[in-house]
């Protein structure tokens, strides 16, 4: 079964061939069938390919390799491979508690209605700042990390809802107490100490 991307390439190829054919042989459009073919080639297929391509780009923007393709993100990528599991991102990434190929997106998306769209708009802002503005140094989140993103997976889990977390659940849900900056799980992407740790190398 060909992948959706392969099918998209086939559609793009068919559309281009049809367009070139009509441009080289305009007499094809003399019949009713030819006019319908022209409508399909000039309107329907380009719109289909455009929407499908946009969807494909949205999907690939979730990939870890996409996020790490910018130079400024390189140390954050290295922090996923720190050989010390007190580092929250490393522990999640290395133990596949999150999909390894969508590691950044899984924790840094917004699990609210229309959250994915807001995250994409943030992404466009990143690109604007990277190429037309001045990136923050060091970079940091636009807004404080929301506990909702942690609780999206952890809430309801037996290992999470224990005697430590249960009494403070209301504070966690209302963000009065932060999971990562209240002293409990505060070792995150600590770039300052990154070089003090060995790097984990996954076996092939």
């Amino acid at each position, binding site marked *: 079964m060909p992948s959706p*991307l392969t099918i*998209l*390439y086939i559609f*793009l190829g068919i*559309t*281009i061939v049809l*367009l*070139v054919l*009509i*441009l080289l042989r*305009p*007499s094809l*459009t*003399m019949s009713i069938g030819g*006019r319908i073919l022209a409508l399909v080639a*000039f*309107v329907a297929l*380009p*719109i289909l*390919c*455009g929407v499908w*391509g*946009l969807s*494909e*780009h949205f999907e*690939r*923007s979730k*990939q870890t*390799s*996409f996020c790490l*393709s*910018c130079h400024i993100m390189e140390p954050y990528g290295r922090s996923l491979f720190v050989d010390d599991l007190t580092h929250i991102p490393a522990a999640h990434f290395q133990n596949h508690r999150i999909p390894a190929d969508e590691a950044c997106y899984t924790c840094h998306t917004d699990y609210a209605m229309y959250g994915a769209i807001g995250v994409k708009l943030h*992404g466009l802002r*990143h*690109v604007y700042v*990277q190429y037309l503005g001045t990136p923050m140094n060091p970079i940091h989140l636009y807004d404080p990390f929301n506990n909702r993103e942690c609780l999206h997976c952890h809430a309801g889990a037996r290992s999470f809802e224990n005697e430590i977390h249960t009494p403070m659940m209301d504070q966690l849900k209302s963000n009065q107490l932060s999971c990562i900056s209240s002293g409990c799980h505060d070792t995150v992407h600590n770039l300052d100490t990154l070089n003090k740790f060995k790097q984990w190398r996954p076996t092939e």
Partner: protein
Amino acid sequence: MRRDKNGFPHTLRLSGVLLVMGLCTEAGSLFWVHPIAFIVFFVVGGALLGAGVLLFLYPLVLLSSSPDSHDSEARETLRRPNSQA
């Protein structure tokens, strides 16, 4: 409406060329996993595709508007797509 030597309206030819350029741009951008590829896809490819589709639909819009000299021309274009100007 101006036509080329084969009787094909210039706007349709331009529309086809824009669409082919847009589709090639979009296909090329899909080979690269990078934010710039998304921008190229969305801004360059999207603009070319949008312009191509709108340029193709332009004579149809002319046809449905009130009758004047341009409409007559558009009707003539769509009635005899392969005729000489």
